[in-house]
């Protein structure tokens, strides 16, 4: 099934589209949700929530900004993070402080966030795709070191080593050393 057919069905509010979405994209959604939510019931609820968000926000999908899978990934991840906030749970990701961001940022915080995003985007743009993917796995997909290691065919120690070097490089880049 081509994704454009699925998008067309959902846009036409055809319930067959919702069924097809779950049938074909539930594995992807579960893959995104699994590292963020530990509870099996939370995960299944989150899949349903993410599917509902797709149904509601389908008009916001803009292929010129990114692929269908990227949009679905972002939507599902947000649904999972919202679930974490809602449950007042912590994100059980290794090495990442378990602080859920405030749900109501101030205008100053928004400006700072935008600045950070731009700086990080620029710094990531300088990395090779393998390193960027590793970064996204750790900080965006919130995957554990063990999961990253098994999916990349590496040992956990090797993953930790690569992440350490990656962070060091990013700190340098973001700290402006490479601009001098």
């Amino acid at each position, binding site marked *: 099934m081509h994704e454009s057919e699925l998008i067309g069905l959902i846009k036409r509010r055809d319930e067959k589209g919702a069924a097809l979405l779950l*049938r*074909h*994209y*539930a*594995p*992807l959604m*579960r*893959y995104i949700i699994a590292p963020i939510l530990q509870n099996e019931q939370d995960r299944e609820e989150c899949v349903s929530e993410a599917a509902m968000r797709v149904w509601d926000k389908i008009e916001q999908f803009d292929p010129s*900004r*990114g*692929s269908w*899978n*990227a*949009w679905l*990934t*972002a939507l599902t991840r*947000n649904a999972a993070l919202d679930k974490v906030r809602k449950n007042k749970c912590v994100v059980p990701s290794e*090495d*990442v*402080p378990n*602080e859920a*961001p405030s749900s109501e940022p101030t205008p100053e915080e928004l400006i*700072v*966030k935008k*600045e*950070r*995003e731009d*700086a*990080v*985007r620029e710094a990531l743009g300088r990395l090779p*795709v*393998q390193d*960027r*993917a590793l*970064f*996204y*796995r750790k*900080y*965006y*997909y*919130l995957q554990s070191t*063990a999961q990253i*290691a*098994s*999916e*990349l*065919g*590496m*040992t956990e120690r*090797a993953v930790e080593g690569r992440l350490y070097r990656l*962070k060091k490089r*990013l*700190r340098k880049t*973001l*700290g*402006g050393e490479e*601009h001098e």
Partner: protein
Amino acid sequence: MSERDWELMKDAELDLALKNSIPELPPDDIVMEVTPWRKAMNRSLAGLALTTITLNFLGLNYILPAVGVIMMLLGFRALRGENGWFKGCWIITSVRTVCIFASLILNATIYQETVYASRLSDVFIALNVAMVFLMLFLLWKGFRAVQIKAGLPAHAGGAAAMIVWYALVCLLAAAQYTGWIILIALIFAYVLIIRSLLKLSRELDEAGYAICPAAVRVSDRTLVIALLAAVAAGIVCGRLFFNSYPMQWQPVEISGDAGTAEIKAELSGLGFPGDILNDLTDEDIKACEGASRVFVETNFYSADEGRVVERVKDGVIYNETVYDDNLRITGVAVELDGGRWKIFHHFRWLNDPGACGTESLQLWPAYHLQRQEGWSAVGDVSGRLLCETDGRTLTAPYYSLGSETYDYDSVFWGTETVTDVFAAFSLPRGGESCRGYVTYDMVKLQDGWMINSWINYTHQRSWFLYPAVTADEYRKSGSWDLDGSFILIQDALQFFPDDEDAEMPE
């Protein structure tokens, strides 16, 4: 946020800042990259494609299966925890990796042809075919299991088609089919099947998110490096230790037999070269008792690749390749009573032969070339090797010496089955005055026939040949494409013994 802030952050703060600073929409290339399935499956399928076909040029028949089996090993290693089918694929691929790498190491030794020609090789081929069939079946079942797990309809026609395709290839190979029409159709079908499998893999991307790759104790990179290092070390060991025949060199025993000394003196008086006489065994000298005539023919040859010398002619400087004689071959015919003759072919290296592995002598006796009309064989061919090492004279029997029947691919006459006498041997590294001879007896059947006895010396000039080929095998194959790795030197002893005025050639 200033640049200095990033520098001053503690690790935990940096982690949080990075986590909160990632743009909400991930880039497409990252979304494509982050999947537990695609990399493993693409590796497995690419490996399958590389190991299924054989391209016999540029060493691709060795490189492609080695690369392919490594890719399959890494791919199925990641998938092995997903279901029993993929685990089976991984086990079979592991066994095939050992077999393929062992064969790569075996190819570096001079025993490879012997092993491949044995029944053991047939067993291995049959096992390999069975393993490929089983792996294709397990792959097909594995694809279906992943689809079922993800709640998708199970279909994996590409994998099933691959089983049928491979069965057809095996049938054609068993029937020794050599036509082009079916072959081209099979290649076309193969491309379609691989395309279909890649398409299936892409279709399974959505289901692939459901799989869980197995954890590894050794990283892919370390595994690949270890495998390549093992095979490289094996090949180097194969070349170093199994590149030449195991020769039984031992000191020459000084003969104190008075009878032998007397015969030697007689032969020497008839013109038998003294240095060659000293190389003969007591048995061969005694066999020449009562000799009436001796004919000798000596030739010098260059067996190296020559040296470039700068010359000046008419004020113009030019380079010339000069070939120095470094191999002397002598033919000796000794006439005995009753129309019997004893023929010797003796060779002597005048300097270091640069022994690289194996050497071969092919003998075309006079009775062989004249189709049993003028001469008839008496007894077997014999001979020995000698050399000087640390001031001692060593001798060894040939590694093998005798008649061999083989298929010779002649440029002019096509493939024909012939029988010749071959002597296979290796010379010691650093040995001086390396030399040897072969000898045979014959009896005259009719008058008027010339003695026309040939020896073809095949010398190996290149140390590294992959796969390893012995001088013996090279000569029997009639090959012309080993790029100077071997050199063939042909020498003949030719004269009319019935011509009373016959003189020894100089």
